[in-house]
């Protein structure tokens, strides 16, 4: 496990912030891919150096690619010369560009989400990228793991999971066994498509169908650890030591499976403030390694 001691407020990083204002993001473009049923998928893409791999970023739960952590990674990696694709999961909304509220009607599921990831994977493949690096944040990591579990991993070079969390009952989330039981009961009562309010992740009232609910709920820690262990590509996990969303046992469990875990001291779930630079350092460090 690599541990980095983070120094606060470095002048060089301040200069970097200033430099980002004239970063290569200006070269980025939005890619839209219409889907059957009228939904149009969107992603921001930066064409990087030809000798560098492409990085596909995945935002967190109900977020967009505009979320701060993901956006900073996009710009930093773009500036570093990487080609970067940062899609926004539609979550059932065409050209979605807004975070989706917990209380909104969630007609999406884990399956629909990873299907979209696959669309983008294919789009990258179509762009002749064969060395895709998956870089997720928070629940986006779960989507990537679910994708890796279900789809082929042949053009995936490696995966970096930042603030890797889990679904399923935990002290830091609202989903409970009881909620899952309720969803299952509804399914058994032929009410699989009935909109209901469930507790999921940080949403106390997450409105969705029982089936959709369970598609996320089933991605609990045990399942994730199982997937991680079975992945054939290099996997890196980066966490902040002050991330409250991650239970203490989770990190231990990650240790237990010998995950390549980097902990940034003092950083939280979103690596706010100066910790984002530490995060970028780590990510770039990982990307620069063979």
């Amino acid at each position: 496990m690599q541990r980095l001691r983070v120094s606060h407020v470095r002048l060089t990083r301040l200069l970097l912030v200033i430099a980002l204002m004239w970063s290569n993001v200006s070269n980025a473009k939005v890619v839209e891919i219409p889907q059957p049923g009228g939904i149009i998928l969107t992603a921001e893409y930066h064409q990087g150096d030809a000798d560098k791999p492409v990085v596909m970023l995945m935002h967190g739960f109900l977020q967009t690619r505009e979320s701060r952590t993901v956006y900073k990674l996009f710009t930093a990696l773009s500036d570093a010369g990487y080609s970067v694709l940062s899609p926004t999961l539609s979550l059932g909304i065409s050209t979605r560009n807004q975070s989706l509220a917990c209380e909104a009607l969630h007609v999406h599921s884990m399956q629909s989400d990873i299907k979209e990831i696959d669309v983008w994977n294919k789009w990258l493949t179509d762009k002749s990228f064969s060395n895709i690096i998956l870089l997720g944040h928070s629940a986006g990591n779960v989507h990537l793991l679910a994708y890796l579990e279900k789809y082929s991993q042949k053009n995936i070079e490696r995966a970096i999971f930042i603030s890797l969390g889990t679904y399923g009952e935990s002290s830091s989330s609202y989903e409970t066994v009881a909620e899952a039981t309720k969803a299952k009961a509804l399914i058994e009562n032929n009410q699989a498509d009935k909109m209901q309010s469930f507790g999921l992740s940080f949403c106390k009232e997450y409105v969705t169908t029982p089936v959709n609910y369970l598609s996320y709920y089933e991605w609990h820690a045990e399942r994730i650890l199982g997937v991680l262990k079975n992945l054939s590509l290099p996997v890196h996990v980066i966490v902040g030591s002050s991330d409250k969303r991650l239970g203490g046992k989770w990190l231990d469990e990650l240790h237990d499976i010998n995950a390549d875990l980097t902990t940034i001291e003092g950083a939280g779930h979103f690596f706010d403030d100066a910790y984002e630079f530490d995060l970028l350092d780590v990510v770039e460090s990982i990307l620069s390694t063979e």
Partner: protein
Amino acid sequence: MKYTLSIRYYAGIISATVISLFVLLGLLTYTEVASLQFELKDSNRKIAGQELQAVISDAVHDIDQLANEFSDWQEVSQQLHNPVYYAYWHNHRALQAGVLPSYITDVAIYLPDGKVLSKLDTSTLPTEINPGNLSSFIEISENKLEQIAFSPVINQRNETKVEGYIAIRADLNHELVNVRQYNYLDRKALKFVKSSFAVIQSSELIDYAKFELRPNPLMKEIMDVVLDMLVRMALVIGLPMLLLYPLVNKLIARPLENISQHIDQLNATNFVSDQPEYSQTLGVTELIKVRESLNEYHQQLYEVHSSLDDKNKELWNMAHHDSLTDAFNRRAFDDHWASISELFDKSRMDICLAIFDVNSFKAFNDSYGHHIGDKVLVEISSAIKSVLRKGEKLYRLGGDEFACLFVNCDLISAKEIARRCEDAVTLLSFSEIGIREPVRISIGLSHMGPNSSSDLADLKWQADIAMYSAKQPGKTHIAYYTDEMKEDVKSVFSSKINNIVYEAITDGLGICMYYQPVVNLENHQPDYYEALLRIETDGAIVSPVDVFQLVEARRLEVEMDAAILQKVYSDLKQGRIPEGTGVSINVSGKSIVQKAIVEQLEKMSKLKNRYKLVLEITETALITQIEEASSNLHHLRRLGFMVALDDFGSGYSSVRYLGSMPVDIVKFDITLIHSLQKDKENTIVRHLSAMISESGHKLVAEGIETAEMDTIVSNLEFSHGQGYFYGKPSSQLDAVKVEKIV
């Protein structure tokens, strides 16, 4: 100033005026502010209407904007793409998501053709809209005011593509009444009234608004400030003005009144010595000064008054006392007379007036000098006062005339007092001052009783008449006035005769000299004429008796003699008396010693060459003033006058005196001449005439009325005769009849 008021009235007027002005000013100010308030309210009402219109426009616009924003919400787009859960989204999500404010009561999503995405029983919005008219409108009814706003849902990738429409229903009443802020109108009183349901445009909503203005804090503050100012002014001005009256009353008016009353008391008490000083406590320095000045002035005034009182008493005494005799004087008599008159008018009583006169006092004065005469008066005054009763006063009226008033005194008592007075004077002896003759007084008494109808003033002239009577020879020296007495001396007190005599004396008016011949008994031709005074008035001759009575009573002998001399001189100058004859003029003893008379005679003496000039002097006149008279007569004889002793033998004729008198002619009184007809007396007169004739005197026989008498006197030593037998007195000498000649 024509009108004067008490200072408390001025204070009251000032207080009332200031308070009235203040109240007026307050009312004017309050009215002005109230008017301003009304104008502001009217203006504010207009502004409030404009404000409400603006707020309505803003609210409507905001709701339209909400509709626009709502249409941009991706969940709306999500529903258009996947309306499976539209009902759930409509009922549980659309309004609860926090995208729309709470006053949005309903939403609906419409397909591009205007039909609602899904007909819901719970929706209050139309099931179909007209995509060609998306203007919002307002539904107003008795209880509701709601705006229905529309907005197209624009495709985000292609803004020309409309994916559908949304409608929202907003509780506009809530927004306008409970949310929006107003500066001018009272939000709580804002109402939109429409009895029946209607659909209107937002621009029409103002017509249904009922509102009240918000209390204008500035105006309220101004009014509060004005009221506060008025209250303060009332405290600052009103209270002092209210206090001014009692203060002025207490501090100035009442003390001034007290001072004034004190001064009045001082006046009323006529500055008695024990009058207390004004000592009341005063609150005003100037009044204290006034009090001190008053007391000081009062003290000074009292001292001056006391001094004046003493002086007045002294002056009164001086003014009412005769300095010589210490009797009261004429002024005191007049004052006493006035008070007695007033008393008599109110209550009739016995009053007697006694007038005292010293007999022949003039002769004493002339003979012994005034200082002796003064001593005589002092003694007589003292003697009379010594016998008067208590309270009876002796007044010296002038010269030798005294008076005394007896109040509540009957005539008998008055006579008794008069008798005591006469006795007291009789007992006096003046030998020490050289007076050998007896000094007597005459007393005239008049009386008026309670039943008398006469005026008290009559007492004076009645006493005068009585005195005149008492003075007459042979009468008692105490005379009481009777009406008969009045007849006897009426000429003396006749105002007509008085006027005639005084006019004759002063202007010579009415004097008409009558001449009676004095004939030479040898040839019975008029040797000269005796000038006899007559006064003519209204064509008649006034009785010579009355004239001489008045002249003697009024002691006008000198003045009358002067007038006669003037007239005779005039007659001589005019030739009324034949030249070669002469004129004999009667001159009183008083006149012969007067320088002016002597000067008149000196002037007349220049006619001695044309006329024989004779002065006839009575024996009494020569006796009383013998020295001065003799001197003058000697002087006049040297100038050519002859002196005739008139009425010889009528009184106490003294042969002794005759020898020493400068007399040329002796006129035997008629009584002596008539006695020639009696044998016994004839002898005496014969011898007397022979003796006087032998001493060198010419003799004139008066009263010759018959031839027999002419014969008698012609046979004696008489050289001249006079009487009706020879001629009566006449103003026309041609008419003089001389019996002997005839």
